[in-house]
């Protein structure tokens, strides 16, 4: 017999900058470190490429958690992209919180190309948090479906 309780399979979107964090993910893979399959990586040229709307969009499309990874502050391939991203994301996260979206669902982590192990542990930790939180509120409902 089939169980009626559906197992919660979260959808986690990870934006990773090409130069550090994506390479870090690569290293995690080639070092055979495991991280949850729920994490879908989107490669971006720099953390600064991530328009705040990308994150809203991810939530609207049903993401349960969104994480942005970039080079450590000071190490951005384009010198200062991550400093701008840092301000933008701080404000966005605060706004999401203000709108009633759980603030534990968004995160920024700096992961370098050499930190394969850190990449895996960051993703494991984030996925565990999202698992605990369960399904996200439907951001797409925020305006339309009262």
């Amino acid at each position: 017999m089939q169980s009626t309780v559906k197992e919660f399979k979260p959808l986690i979107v990870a934006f990773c900058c090409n130069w550090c964090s994506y390479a870090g993910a690569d290293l995690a893979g080639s070092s055979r470190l495991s991280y949850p399959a729920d994490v879908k990586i989107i490669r971006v040229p720099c953390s600064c490429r991530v328009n705040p709307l990308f994150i809203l969009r991810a939530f609207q499309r049903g993401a349960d958690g969104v994480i942005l990874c970039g080079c450590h502050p000071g190490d951005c391939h384009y010198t200062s992209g991550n400093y701008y991203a840092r301000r933008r994301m701080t404000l966005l996260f605060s706004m999401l919180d203000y709108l009633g979206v759980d603030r534990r669902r968004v995160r920024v982590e700096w992961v370098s190309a050499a930190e394969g192990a850190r990449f895996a542990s960051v993703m494991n930790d984030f996925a565990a948090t999202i698992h605990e939180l369960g399904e996200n509120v439907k951001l797409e409902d925020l305006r339309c479906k009262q």
Partner: protein
Amino acid sequence: MQAVAEKVIARAKELLASGEVQRVLGWEKGEFDYERTPALFEQGNIDKLVYDKFCAANLSKKLVEVSKLEGKTLALIKPCDSLSLNQLLCEHRVKRENIYVLGVGCKGMEGKDGLCMKCEFCKGKNFAISDEVIDDESCREVPQSDRFAAVRELEEKTPEERYAFWRSELSKCIRCNACRNVCPACTCIKCVFDNPDSGVAAKANVDTFEENQFHIIRAFHVAGRCTDCGECSRVCPQGIPLHLLNRKFIKDMDTLYGDYQAGEDAEARHPLINFTKADAEPSVVLNRGE
């Protein structure tokens, strides 16, 4: 106010008659008693120019187009409008050499329901930019108020309450776009909220994403440049407190990156196009107490 208004109108007529300016950007009587509509005046219709307690509309955005016209335009600018104008000048959206800015004193503007919300929280009676000012003592009093009180009140609620509050507020929206159209910070020629293929100008959206997230996207687009002029909330036919979104951003930027008033200094870099190495990490949001 009466005395100031008379002087303003006389001065506008004088400048127009002398040929120093080719036209005047001001207000005329609107459809309702409590409403004044922005309008352009020349020799023929200058008698229709009014200045009174119903001239709440911020004229600065009109200058984006008007300053492209041949010759000089006289612009009547209230203290709060001067911040918007200065911000537009900072973004090179208005041709400074084509405008003559007449700062006009203001005692607080009214609408259908009495004093405007933006005037209740007046940011001061100084002119960020002007070529000439006409005001008097009665126009310099600034009401004591805390514009972040309502934001704080919301912040203190539970996430569920906040979600319910915004859902019910934003669900009222009829997407008339009035808030965007009036906003002096929204001057993009190509706006994300328009769909050029729809055949319906300035209305239909490219897709549901922009539609559903309209209010948050709009607030983020003007973050750092929003002078908190309050026009968005004033024109919203549904009474949605849009200023609570703008003020949330302003409050956060003030606390995290130091006090900043958009439009005050045309040379300044606003907080979102600036950074310091010691900026807070985004985890401050996570770590602050409930």
